[in-house]
């Protein structure tokens, strides 16, 4: 279907009129509104899946959505004065405060509705769109406070497993043994020595109504999770894996492939925790070896057999634990013979 991109509102004050995009392009037949709220013409790298996540997130959440975007790749690549790629209200304040800025916005909406400034029947979504650094590290406290205080905020963490904006430094979600510029593959130490923080479980431990993981390569599952989060009367958290070509070092054409392999190997399990109930939402009958996921990426190319075997063991254990939580073998056994 050919679709004309519709542009709502204006860009930043001072922008050239009509500078907002007028374009037509193909897009697949999803059950989604045609209206584009995340506009083309951004500065994200070729094949960056931040755009895929942001675009679909807004298609689900709709125009009555306010985006809080902490510092990071998404922010710097989409709003450079006087241009913007966001056709919804958008705010960037700093790196470590997505949760608290959103708390203030949500609180303001509540009181302005009571005081008759905003129509009390109008549902306005407040969404934080933050990187792994802005969420799991420097913004962890603000996130925790926001969840604990029960603000009606949808927190979407796009996880490219490192501080990509500042040049691929490690973060609290960088996987074991990945080479990053502050955890380089060295002669003595083989890259990052820490495990990925399970942010969706940590968020769920706050007792929030909805927490999930998602993967843009499994689009309907991801969309469904945005939809659920939008319907909830309280905080929700969605941890989305996001492939990053310069950071992970794969060929740009593999941006979706590498995400598929993340799930097919059990490295990334798509699940949700709704009112305390844990459910694996994308089942994998037989798992491919983790090597399939690793070998596409330069950040793991220094790994020898021993490290790969260790990583496989870590994944086997993670999968076992998640299956136990779900009460069944939703992620199947390792198939060592599987083709990548």
């Amino acid at each position, binding site marked *: 279907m050919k679709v004309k991109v519709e542009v709502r509102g204006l860009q930043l004050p001072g922008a050239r009129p009509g500078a907002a995009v007028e374009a037509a392009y193909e897009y697949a037949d999803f059950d989604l509104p045609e209206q584009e709220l995340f506009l083309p013409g951004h500065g994200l790298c070729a094949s960056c899946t931040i755009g895929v996540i942001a675009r679909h997130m807004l298609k689900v959440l709709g125009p009555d959505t306010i985006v809080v975007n902490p510092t990071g790749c998404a922010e710097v690549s989409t709003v450079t*004065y006087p241009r913007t790629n966001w056709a919804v209200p958008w705010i960037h304040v700093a790196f470590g405060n997505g949760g608290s*800025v959103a708390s203030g916005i949500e609180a303001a909406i509540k009181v302005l509705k009571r005081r008759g400034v905003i129509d009390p029947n109008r549902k306005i979504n407040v969404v934080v769109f933050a990187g792994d650094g802005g969420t799991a590290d420097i913004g962890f406290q603000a996130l925790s406070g926001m969840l604990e205080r029960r603000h009606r905020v949808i927190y979407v963490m796009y996880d490219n497993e490192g501080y990509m904006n500042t040049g691929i430094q490690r973060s609290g979600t960088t996987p074991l043994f990945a080479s990053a510029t502050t955890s380089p593959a060295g002669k003595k130490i083989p890259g990052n020595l820490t495990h990925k923080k399970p942010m969706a479980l940590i968020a769920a431990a706050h007792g929030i109504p909805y927490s999930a993981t998602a993967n843009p390569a499994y689009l309907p599952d991801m969309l469904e999770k945005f939809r659920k989060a939008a319907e909830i009367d309280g905080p929700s958290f969605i941890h989305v894996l996001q492939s990053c070509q310069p950071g992970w070092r794969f060929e740009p054409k593999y941006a979706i492939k590498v995400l598929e392999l993340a799930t097919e190997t059990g490295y990334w399990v798509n699940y949700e925790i709704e009112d305390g109930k844990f459910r694996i939402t994308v089942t994998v009958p037989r798992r491919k070896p983790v090597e399939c996921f690793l070998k596409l990426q330069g950040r793991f190319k220094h790994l020898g057999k021993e490290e790969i075997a260790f990583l496989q063991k870590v994944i086997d254990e993670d999968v076992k634990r998640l299956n136990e939580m779900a009460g069944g073998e939703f992620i199947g056994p390792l198939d060592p013979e599987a083709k990548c």
Partner: protein
Amino acid sequence: MTLQLELGKVRQKRIALTGNHAVALAAKMARVEVIAAYPITPQTPAVERLAEFVNNGELDAEYIPVEGEHSALSAVVGASAMGARVFTATSSQGLGFMYEILPIAVGLRLPVVMGIATRAYSAPINVWGDYSDVMSMRELGWIIYMVSNVQEAFDTTIQAFRVGEDPSVHLPVAVAYDGFWISHVLQPLEVPEDEEDVMRYAPITRSWRKLDVDNPASLGAVGTPEWYFEIRYAAYKALEDSIKVVLEADALYGKMFGRSYGLGSGYKLEDADVAIVTYGSIYGLARKAVDALRAEGIRAGALKIRLLRPWPADFLRRRLDGVDKVVVVDRAFNHGGLVGPVATELAATLARPIYSAYATIGMRATDSAALKKAAERVAKGEVEPMRPFNIGLRGP
């Protein structure tokens, strides 16, 4: 018992409050809509009182009990961007914890109002009132008031909303009041009987609203070298020009409520040979010192600075150009600098050497006798200009 007064056109009553409770009452009477705060001595009773107002249904606001000051300021920045009237308050370590967001509130042009019950910075940890916190935020673009008593703290907090929210200003405003010597001291003050009068003085216009789903805009963009200068200059200029709005708002407040303060005030400066310049609660001590000096035949005067930012240069020149010797009693160190923080700027303003003293550091007690002695030393030429000396420091 409360006493009815007809001041200006507005009915007022006389009550007694601490500085913290007066500031909280002012924010309540200005009908703030979102409050986010984190407790710290000596600010704590201010934010506790606001929580009581909200939880007792006396103030229809959202109170966000955030998990730290970085979040406190971040939350009110978000709420202000939505067009809400907002308030927060803090002291020293809390202000330090907020620091990253202080210049952002300026760049985003949001009229956040913040009370600062002033306090020394650690280390050593010291919960008492000096001005090292306030002095550390001078260059960031906030309007900064320094008040001298509970009444002025109340009145200035109400003025702060009108000034910061003025469409030609749209800047955050800090109202600093001495930790303990104002924040915790019970003083009589007059407050309006009817909140409506405060709302007439400072109506919520929402002219600063930035986030609106019917009119989407992006706020907080990357400002490249091609744009940053202009955008930041606009905030710089707005602060400089806000002095007119500060004066207008103060004059209107005077008309309606019968009290106004200007950019500062002077005491017996007209024929003075030596002037004690200071800020905050110790201005009363300075005036007492002036009387004592005059009794001994030294023609002394005193001046207090009410507005730290924008710096009221013309006002200071007018009041002090004719005074031979000017000594600034600074209440925060200017570590590694030439003279005290305010002394540095006043010397530049008057374009001549002045005298600089440090007092009340970490809330070291002082009194009018100590200030008198300091001015006497200056008058008699016992201390050098542009070389700081200390009031009340033990040791050699």
